[in-house]
């Protein structure tokens, strides 16, 4: 069970409170987590990564175990702490005014 922390606006959109959990098959990677997340919460499709290219939206970043994974390959295995559910995978909105 992988824990995912969403920005507040996406929690509202998906009608969830706090963290969500997803199951992934195979290695825990950014891609496998986001695939599982979008499968469980279809309203999130297109809000975290592009509908077509699946590239991360420009103003979002991904963190795992206090490290920025935003620019890593989406298929690179995440740390064991993420795969085991000890630490959450963080989807964070860039801090920008407006």
């Amino acid at each position, binding site marked *: 069970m992988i824990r995912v922390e969403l*920005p507040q*606006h996406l929690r509202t959109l998906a*009608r*969830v409170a706090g963290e969500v959990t997803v199951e992934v098959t195979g290695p825990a990677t950014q891609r496998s987590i986001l695939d599982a997340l979008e499968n469980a919460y*279809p*309203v999130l499709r297109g809000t975290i990564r592009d*509908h077509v290219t699946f590239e991360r939206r420009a103003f979002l970043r991904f963190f795992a175990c206090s490290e920025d994974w935003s620019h890593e390959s989406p298929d690179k295995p995440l740390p064991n702490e993420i795969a085991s559910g000890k630490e959450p995978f963080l989807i964070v909105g860039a801090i920008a005014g*407006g």
Partner: protein
Amino acid sequence: MSNVRVLVGTKKGAFILSSDGKREKWDISGPHFAGWEIYHMKGSPVDPNRIYASQTSGWFGQIIQRSDDGGKTWHQPGSPAGEAPAAGGGPPKGVSNKFVYDTSSEVGKPLTTHQWYDGTQHPWEFKRVWHLEPSLTEPDAVYAGIEDAALFRSVDGGITWNELPGLRGSDTGPRWQPGAGGMCLHTVILDPSNPLRMYIAISAAGAFRTDDGGKSWKPINRGLKSQYIPDPNAEVGHCVHHVAMHPKRPNTLFMQKHWDVMRSDDAGDNWREISGNLPTDFGFVIDVHAHEPETLYVVPIKSDSEHFPLDGKLRVYRSRIGGNEWEPLSKGLPQSNCFVNVLRDAMAVDSLDSCGVYFGTTGGQVYASADAGNNWAPIVHDLPAVLSVEVQTLP
């Protein structure tokens, strides 16, 4: 007695303002979708409880919201066939709405670039939905004008969207360029007398018309003159801010261009200037009285670099004779130290016997006049910056 429902899109959510036909006391509902930009909301003419909303964010992209009960509850369209939209418990089943440019071979020559600010070519990139225009006959049919400029249509209540690629695929596409607000398709007008005819406008490309239901389009910019482009009389490249039509005079169009207020009486084939005695002919909004096709409203703005009223006085200007001769309407509007803007989709009229006129400002006020503009009063003072205003007249 009839009622009115004013749909207000703002920088930080949507608000619905409701009143009876007197339009003196108002109920305020909102913010809906708090924290998101609501570029536009509009109700279906054939089912007023069906309202579409464009919810957008620089962080999270585009969402289309739909209400089937007059704005009390909302959902993202897209539930699987036969399954009711989720309400209350559980995650919504609808998918975020997907706007993907048509690149199919059937289109013939899908364009991949348009002109950028510096004159180079730039790829088309979807950013947001600026305007939603529900069909005049089918509640499930709705058009979306988007940035970067293209026209999409849904015929299943907003679940799936397909581009009408003939517009972007016309020969002029590579010469379209973004205005200061982006390359947005902001105006969609359906001709009530001819289901095959439609008008759209793009900043900064100009106005276009289809006479075959959206398959093919032609620029309709003859008569526009824009000194800020290399050829002031160019076929495309004009920064059209908004276009309005009275439904009983579908061949007559009124335009607020970047500078200049314009009129066409031949479905956009030819335009002539009707700025007349306006103190400045820069502005964004333009609208037509519900019962008087020659009565127009604009809000003059000082200039393209100073987006606020002249002399700090907020004034609507009205022409009763189709342009050229304008009178200022200021009773009830701030006449000192007012430096707000009124954006292009932020004016609307109701169709009660005494026509109501409404507009919203970037300062968060929504003003209403229940007597065609003679007297004004704010419905609300302190909303987030208003992006759009639409009005529904309800039985």
